[in-house]
């Protein structure tokens, strides 16, 4: 009442200053809030960059390998002193090839063969892999015995790391893996061009090896390839069939509701549970072999199915009902409508979902550990029933190795895996851009 009858007392109040609604404080809060958002977003992106950088900076050197190219004298005296290779071909398999290589290197370095201490150190410059390398050369072509050939030999893992600058040479000699003498030799060889870095094809084609310089992801690539093939062949038709039924035919009842909830749940079941399922059902119950890419493929198929079903259903839902009505109106049966008209129109979406599902399956590790793919496999698997490994499992196995040079290999393998994933995802994006239709 007083306010109304005596405006004199009210007016000056408003004139004196607007009611303090804390506008400054509120705007400051607004800016702070916004800054939190920016900070959170950049934190995520910075860590993405950091992760990629850490992998790439550690791993890019894995694509180069230090090789020592020297003339090697395949002397008959060392390889086959009694000249019995015609009678006993086994002789060529068991000959002492490391000595052949070591002596050749000693000759290049000017070290006397009789200096036992030094000659041992010379031998350590070379990888143990030279044994198989030279053996394969000789077995393939026994005629080279007695001749001298220029051969690029694998340098030992420690020399490889040292040459790439990954071993700190300022540490006291006793605390590092290569001696001062070896470093001198290494520099001497590098100056004369005998020791040099070459592109490392080995990492793509070799199988498992306990020596980092000879280890590669060849077997793992083939195993992963088989698995992806199995996943594609099984999960695409089954997934599409299931989604067509659920989206186009299924009556709305308890049973289809159950399937619906089920699929959503299966998509969120931890992948390791699928590994347990595979172990119990495929290996123990059905008696399929352990470590086989067939079992891995089946497990990954079950894991990928929900993803593909969810993507396919979304793609089918996006096709407008007018297409169905038009086809039905022209006398097509329901089946014909779906298979001749709806499905082709939904295909880009289905394929995009499938590729993304496959990419997930390619990077999946945990279930494969349980079905015995953690195996030391040096030979290429000829069929999906042979033991093999997979790319992510190979990464896991290498990550557990203690040797420094394996960190580089692991990062190299991760780069290969990421490249595959990038190619698949970019393919999916391009497919979507190119063929997606907006209705």
């Amino acid at each position, binding site marked *: 009442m007083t306010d109304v009858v005596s405006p004199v007392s009210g007016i000056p109040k408003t004139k004196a200053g607007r009611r303090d609604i804390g506008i400054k404080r509120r705007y400051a809060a607004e800016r702070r809030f916004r800054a939190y958002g920016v900070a959170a977003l950049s934190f*995520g992106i910075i860590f993405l960059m950091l992760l990629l950088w850490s992998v790439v900076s550690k791993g890019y050197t894995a694509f180069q390998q230090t090789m020592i190219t020297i003339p090697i004298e395949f002397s008959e005296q060392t390889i086959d002193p009694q000249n019995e290779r015609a009678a006993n071909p086994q002789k060529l398999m068991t000959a002492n090839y490391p000595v052949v290589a070591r002596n050749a290197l000693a000759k290049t370095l000017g070290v006397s063969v009789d200096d036992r201490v030094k000659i041992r150190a010379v031998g350590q410059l070379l990888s143990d892999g030279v044994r198989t390398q030279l053996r394969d050369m000789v077995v393939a072509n026994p005629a080279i015995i007695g001749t001298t050939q220029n051969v690029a030999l694998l340098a030992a893992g420690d020399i490889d790391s040292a040459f790439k600058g990954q071993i700190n040479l300022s540490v006291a000699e006793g605390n590092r893996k290569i001696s001062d003498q070896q470093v001198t030799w290494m520099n001497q060889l590098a100056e004369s061009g005998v020791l040099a870095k070459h592109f490392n094809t080995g990492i793509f084609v070799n199988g498992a090896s306990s020596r980092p310089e000879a280890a590669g992801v060849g077997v793992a690539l083939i195993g992963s390839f088989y698995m992806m093939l199995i996943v594609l062949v099984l999960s695409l038709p089954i997934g599409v069939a299931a989604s067509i039924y659920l989206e186009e035919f299924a009556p709305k009842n308890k049973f289809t509701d159950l399937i619906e909830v089920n699929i959503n749940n299966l998509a969120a079941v931890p992948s390791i549970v699928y590994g347990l399922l595979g172990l119990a059902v495929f290996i123990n119950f059905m008696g399929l072999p352990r470590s086989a890419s067939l079992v891995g493929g089946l497990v990954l198929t079950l894991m990928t199915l929900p993803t593909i079903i969810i993507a396919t259903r979304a793609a089918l839902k996006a096709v407008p009902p007018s297409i169905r009505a038009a086809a039905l109106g022209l006398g097509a049966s329901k089946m014909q409508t779906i298979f001749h008209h709806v499905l082709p129109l939904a295909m880009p979406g289905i394929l995009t979902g499938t590729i993304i599902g496959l990419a997930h399956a390619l990077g999946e590790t945990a279930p494969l550990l349980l079905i015995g793919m953690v195996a030391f496999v040096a030979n290429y698997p000829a069929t999906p029933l042979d033991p093999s490994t997979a790319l992510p499992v190979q990464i896991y196995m290498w990550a557990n190795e203690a040797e420094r040079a394996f960190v580089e290999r692991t990062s190299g393998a991760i780069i290969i895996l990421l490249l595959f994933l990038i190619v698949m995802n970019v393919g999916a994006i391009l497919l979507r851009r190119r063929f997606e239709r907006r209705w």
Partner: protein
Amino acid sequence: MSTSLILLIVAIVGLAGYGIGARRSLAIAGGLSSKLHSRPGYYGSFVAVCAIVPAVFILFVWLVASPAVISSSIRGSFPEEVKAQSEAEQGLAFGMITSIARGMNVLSLEEIDRIGSNPVELRSALGAKGVPLAGDPQPYMIEAAGNLNTMTYASRLAMTAVVVVFSVLGAGLAYRRIAPRFRARNRVEKVILVSLVVASSIAILTTVGIVLSMLTEATRFFTHVPAWEFFFGTVWDPRFAAAGSGGSEGQFGLIPLLLGTLYIGFVAMLFAVPIGLFSAIYMAEYASPHVRSTAKPLLEVLAGIPTIVYGFFALTTVGPFLRDLSSQLNGLVTGDYSNFIQAQSVLTAGFVMGIMLIPYVSSLSDDIITAVPRALRDGSLGLGATRSETIKRVILPAALPGIVGALLMTASRAVGETMIVVLAAGVAARIQLNPFEPMTTVTVKIVNQLTGDLEFTSPQTLVAFALGITLFAITLCLNIYALYIVRKYREQYE
């Protein structure tokens, strides 16, 4: 004949049936497809379906049933004294017989004749061919192995014949039914529909398979170790009982693993929730379309990176960094340069897992925030609230149930995550609260228990299934509850 060859024959019969059926239908209609009830292709498909489906079904049933029939017949012919032995010993004898039978396939006929029923000679002959036997076989086993080989051979032969005959018969019968008024399309479509139903029930079968396989194996585990000792035990020490030591099988307490899982998951959520939520809010409410269209895919790349890569990152970068950082800090403060954060620790695993979870939180909450109706936003802004006030007082409360659902889904991922914790959390199962010390999780122990060369019936291996079903139950509950919340919330605005 190998199974794949039989399948090939059936496929060829089916393909031929398709061609013949299609041409036959046209010929019957005098070349006018308009006189037919269905297009000629459907008649062809009908013949092909009749040729393939029953034959493949029989093949499958035969392949599953015949080993069981043969084995029971062989076991039935065991001498009486063997039959009197325990089930396990009979199983061993049968295993021996199958390996002899496999070996005899490698031997030539003369060799088999020469061996006759001399066990010692058989063993050495098989050894030379690379088929080792566990012990000297008994004479009756050699006879049984011979029988086994004959029966297997006969069964394969009969199977081939029956399958091929059924395939041709099916095609022939279908061919005879072709007539202009025959509704081939309806029949074929019915078959397609049935196969669609079968495909969609695979989802159910998977769940049933998961639950059944894990329940049976876990039940076997609980016959060795009482359930309450597993669920409420506080010590995890699955000692491998040395042969002959008897008794002591170690302790299988779930509690330390469960605590480790929850602790690491909690630390991960501590990082992921604020960062993911603020990113989502920023992208949904502040960011220009340009920023949004670059930042969103970048964040989603984080979700596409395989978890093994995160594990490696934790193992080689984050872990050592935290360890060195802690020793530097310790040195600055106390002068003692020893690290108080272990390279493998709850913090390392939780932090890296948190980074992995950011995109899940952000994209799920982004969807939910953008789904809040425009009118609520406009109303609040129109009344003079700033944007952040609108978000805090109006949008977040409205989106809260959905966000809680999203967080529950993320939490279930954190609980089930394997590779990061395998590489970064350590293997020591203990109950403690220091985040700088290693702890272990359920998933780590599943991997540890199953990646050795272990006998499959020992409790050390079977415990993995008990752990697995626990994990499955936890994530299932989280997910169902989350789905329930999200669905209910969605209905509110529709």
